[in-house]
């Protein structure tokens, strides 16, 4: 009962947050200098044309009225029409979302593997040079944001030793018809693992750039929790049972040490998704972030609003899912 109540309160705060985002983005971009209507019209359009288009997009009404109309539309699932691309915003945005989601999830997997491995090695070889090496590596990786890692990766593996693609989600030469925009997942479901490999190779560089800072955070926090757990009595007891240190770390310590890291990954995952905006730009990856930058440059108000709202919804949903996961994974809470 209390759990249901807590969930309800969370959903309520989520709604308030999303409403806040909608208000901020709506009024913020209406202060944009530069009339978007003027950009849509060919040179030599008459005053009458402008007025007609303004009426079409509702720019002739008061700001407050515009907000009410827009808010009502949004609640009905209508996000308007993109000014620059002349297509429904919801179609455009949902078409690009899978690309960004796949990139982010791939990056998350890399970060967990990389950070987990570093935390494990640092714990296994604690109080030695190897642990110091893990500390220095994660400290450096953490201090430098994904934007710079992306440029370093482009330089190293795109130019100096060109083994990875640094541009685009799919090679133009790939002969494969996708029915959905979840390319990697779709290819895997259709058992075309050659295509999966191709796609993962294409997005490996941007995903790695996004993953490096998160991997470092995971490495640091998880190693700290693991080391604390390694001192506990039940871990000592497990050692006397004849298990190897590796097994002790992975089976006895990890399940109890992982919870704080998991919570952190949840928060950090939204930061990672936020990072896709500039990373997609750098790697010409056809996702939501890349589209967002174009939308800002083109002053495409409906599209900007749609994308920002989608990101905000994504972030709040992820936070909710992480909180619920933590409850499920904690045996004490589960049985309470």
């Amino acid at each position: 009962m209390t759990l249901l109540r807590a969930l309800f309160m969370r959903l309520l705060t989520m709604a308030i947050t999303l409403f806040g985002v909608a208000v901020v983005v709506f009024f913020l971009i209406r202060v944009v200098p530069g009339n978007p209507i003027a950009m849509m019209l060919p040179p030599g359009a008459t005053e009458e044309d402008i007025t007609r288009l303004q009426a079409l997009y509702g720019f002739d009404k008061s700001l407050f009225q515009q907000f009410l109309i827009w808010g009502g539309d949004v609640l009905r699932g209508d996000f308007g029409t993109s000014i620059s691309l002349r297509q429904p915003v919801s179609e455009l945005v949902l078409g690009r979302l899978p690309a960004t989601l796949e990139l982010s999830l791939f990056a998350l997997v890399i970060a967990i593997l990389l950070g987990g491995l570093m935390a494990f090695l640092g714990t296994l070889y604690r109080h030695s040079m190897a642990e110091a090496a893990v500390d220095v590596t994660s400290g450096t990786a953490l201090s430098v944001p994904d934007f710079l890692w992306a440029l370093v990766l482009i330089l190293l593996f795109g130019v100096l030793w060109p083994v990875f693609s640094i541009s685009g989600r799919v090679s133009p030469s790939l002969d494969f018809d996708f029915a959905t925009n979840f390319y990697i997942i779709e290819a895997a479901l259709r058992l075309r693992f050659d295509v999966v490999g191709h796609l993962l190779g294409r997005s490996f560089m941007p995903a790695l750039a996004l993953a490096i800072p998160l991997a470092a955070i995971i490495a640091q926090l998880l190693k700290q929790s693991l080391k604390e757990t390694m001192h506990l009595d039940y871990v000592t007891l497990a050692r006397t049972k004849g298990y190897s240190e590796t097994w002790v770390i992975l089976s006895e310590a990890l399940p109890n040490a992982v919870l704080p890291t998991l919570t952190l990954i949840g928060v950090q995952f939204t930061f990672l998704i936020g990072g896709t905006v500039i990373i997609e730009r750098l790697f010409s990856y056809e996702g939501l972030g890349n589209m967002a930058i174009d939308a800002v440059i083109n002053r495409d108000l409906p599209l900007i609003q749609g994308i920002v709202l989608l990101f905000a919804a994504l972030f709040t949903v992820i936070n909710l899912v992480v909180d619920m996961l933590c409850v499920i994974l904690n045996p004490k809470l589960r049985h309470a």
Partner: protein
Amino acid sequence: MSGFLDIKGLTLRLRGGPTILRSVSLRVASGKVHGLVGESGAGKSTIGKAVLGTLPRAIEITGGEIWLDGVNLLALPPRERRRRIGATAALIPQDPLTALNPSKRIGPQITRRLIDILGWSKADANRRARDILDEVHIPDVARVMRSYPHELSGGMRQRVLIASAFAAEPKLIVADEPTTALDVTVQKQILRLINEMRARHGTALLFVTHDLGVVSKVCNSLSVLYAGKVVEEAQMHRFFTQPIHPYSRALLAATPTYLDPDGSLQPVPAEVIQEVETEVHQHAQRAGYDV
């Protein structure tokens, strides 16, 4: 006479720091109970850890041998040493509240090692776990095996830990202050239980404690540890009638003994403390470290 566990001249020190144990020797004969007594900080738990291979990394072994069932553990490569210890010895830990993995059910915490390390079948391991839990007088065994540790009381958890220690029929059990964390009424029951289980299974027991009263109830022989050094090793009866070392005498005097039902507590006389301190200090200076 060589014991089942035979520690010879064990010397430990903090990495790059002072020595904590100086040339400690002690024997536990097969099926016998040997007490290891001393104040906290004397290094008695450290000996138990050295035997079971769970010393913290900050401590290194600089000398000595630990013979377990005819094998010098310190001469084995680490992985093999662990297997060997896991197959022959077990630990009854101090604090039942922290010695069970909070994220695992009780059943697997007893059966996993039987399956993983000793190669039992799952059915055999489960049957064994049920039998042994029954032996330690746990009611409703099936429910307990499905429980998480936090759902059991402290006394129950200690019973589970005792059962777990005996499950693989080890030949040696190290009990590290197994009753200290429990309240007095439970202490007696647990002590009786350990004694009963040990006698039934014929297990040798190294009983680490600071409580002479407890020692007098369970042990056949004992070693008294003071400042990292064994100051007296004796059979139980001889120790309580004719303690030799001044520290032993002081310890006895300060303990409400089982011989004296009034249990009137004698403070350690100041001159005894002085005597002991001087002796230890001299020893320390001979060993070359700062006290």
